[in-house]
């Protein structure tokens, strides 16, 4: 109720500009990070970690587009990471190593998969939608494990990163970092535009009240399907980047756990605030990375043996921690940033 009261007292335009500082700070931090990486002494490590953060940021943002703005809980979005990854991997094994071909192919493949599975899934609602997207995701997962020519269960190692117009520029971790940042920025700008556009307004309206939208003449299905395709393509792009980052592709790209993680990132960051999804992805990956050390550090009062134990079994803390954050920080991290004083 306080939330509603807040929006009532504040005129609409300033409401949207007030929080612009968050994305600016976020992207400035990503832009400045390579500098920090150079001085950290662990350049490769920092760069690769942050590159992963950005890639998952793109994927989480893609999911946020339909989950946060369309209330469509896709539990199979990792499939698109797989499609992007395998497009790069499969084309590379056939000698097509240029990103200028790989990425368009990945986007088209993602779009087709989204179009077909979306057209079927979107006929259902609620839990059924969740289950059917999960089923499609699993279908693709098992397909990948059965691709013996492309590594089957084990996946395949890429001989190198993709070329860009014949040049090996992405070999440099810095160059690849910048490419990911540009993709992230592009995806963010595009998503922002989509959300505010006529199209996005129909999508948001449908989330609030589908019957009302039909009663003024919209056919929600078309808009939801288009959003699903856009989201799938964006996640497919993230898949291309992920394959290049890891220089490896495997069915593990598209496990249902991965789909679940994407949902978690979006909810963690705060539904329906694009940059929130990026922050959610960052929080998730960084926690995953540093929780063992953090646990070891904060448990200084315990016996050394217990501390080691705790750090080793950090996942036992990770899960409940995420659940607590989601339960008690309504609106995710963006919710916290919005109301820093009176939470």
């Amino acid at each position, binding site marked *: 109720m306080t939330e*509603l009261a807040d*929006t*009532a007292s504040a*005129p*609409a335009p300033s409401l949207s500009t007030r929080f612009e500082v968050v994305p600016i700070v976020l992207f400035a931090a990503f832009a400045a990070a390579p500098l920090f990486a150079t001085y950290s002494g662990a350049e490769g490590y920092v760069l690769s970690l942050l590159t992963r953060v950005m890639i998952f940021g793109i994927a989480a943002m893609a999911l946020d587009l339909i989950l946060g703005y369309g209330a469509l809980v896709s539990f199979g979005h990792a499939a698109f990471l797989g499609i992007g990854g395998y497009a790069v991997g499969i084309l590379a094994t056939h000698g097509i190593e240029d990103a200028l071909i790989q990425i368009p192919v990945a986007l088209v493949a993602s779009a087709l998969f989204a179009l077909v599975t979306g057209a079927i899934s979107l006929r259902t609602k609620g839990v059924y939608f969740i289950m059917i997207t999960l089923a499609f995701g699993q279908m693709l997962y098992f397909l990948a494990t059965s691709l013996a020519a492309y590594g089957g269960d084990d996946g395949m190692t890429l001989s190198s990163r993709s070329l860009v117009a014949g040049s090996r520029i992405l070999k440099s971790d810095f160059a690849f970092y910048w490419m990911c940042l540009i993709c992230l920025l592009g995806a963010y700008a*595009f998503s922002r*535009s*989509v959300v*505010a*556009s*006529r*199209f*996005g*307004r*129909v999508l*948001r*309206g449908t989330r*609030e*009240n589908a*019957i*009302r*939208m*039909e*009663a*003024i*003449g*919209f*056919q929600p299905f078309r*808009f939801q399907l*288009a959003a699903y395709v856009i989201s799938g393509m964006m996640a497919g792009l993230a898949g291309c980047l992920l394959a290049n980052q890891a220089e490896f592709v495997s069915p593990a790209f598209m496990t249902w756990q991965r789909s679940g993680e994407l949902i978690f990132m979006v909810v963690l960051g705060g539904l329906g605030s694009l940059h929130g999804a990026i922050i959610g992805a960052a929080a998730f990956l960084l926690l995953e990375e540093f929780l063992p050390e953090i646990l070891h550090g904060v448990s200084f009062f315990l016996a050394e043996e217990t501390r080691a134990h705790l750090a080793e079994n950090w996942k036992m803390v990770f899960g409940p921690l995420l659940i607590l954050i989601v339960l008690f920080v309504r609106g995710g991290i963006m919710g916290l940033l919005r109301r820093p004083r009176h939470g």
Partner: protein
Amino acid sequence: MAEPLLELRNLRKAYGALVVTDDVSLAVQPGELHAIIGPNGAGKTTLIHQISGTLRSDSGSVLFAGQDVTSLSMPQRVGRGLARSFQITSILPGFSALENVALAVQARSGSSFRFFGNASQEKALNQPAMDCLQQAGLGARAHIPSGLLSHGEKRQLELAIGLATEPKLLLLDEPLAGTGHDESQRVVETLRRLKGRLTIVLIEHDMEAVFSLADRVSVLVYGRVIATDTPGRIRANPEVRAAYLGEEEMV
């Protein structure tokens, strides 16, 4: 007599053994304000659902502007100019009143597959939306999130949204339900102004409003139309009086 704008032919709808719409045939003339009255549970809302396409009929047909629209979906019927409001307010609570209406304007003003440009700043959508809000007496509240409007204001918003779809015929399901006296007066005034410009099917329990606004009145009891006539003759109809006995005082 001119060709009716809306014609219902032997419409039927049953929930299991409960027949809610029982062989309803009705003709609404262009430009008229046609009221449908009837006791609670008579099947008025169900009939609106069937006319608007919210609900499929078991049998019978709906003709609109001379064409059979029975198999069309609700959005398609809206496209033909057949709009409705809801008895239980149905709005987009997170959107401002203006945006609720602007979306309805957007629905019929070209493609909504536009991914660029801020829709909420589009003058071409906001201007007509503002006009509709003003017609419904809600101009001053345009920028309030609609979830925060009072109950009566939400009813006015329903009306404004309906107007914004530029319908030929507007189906109104109890626009006065639960409104205070002032708000109710405002809605009645709005309807009076719309009358003649727009064909209206009005469902309403407020008999005073019905008899002062309607050109013709149909009485629905247990899913059947027992009478269709001018307000004066309906009031005098003994069958109608019997149906209402113990229900409500006829004015």
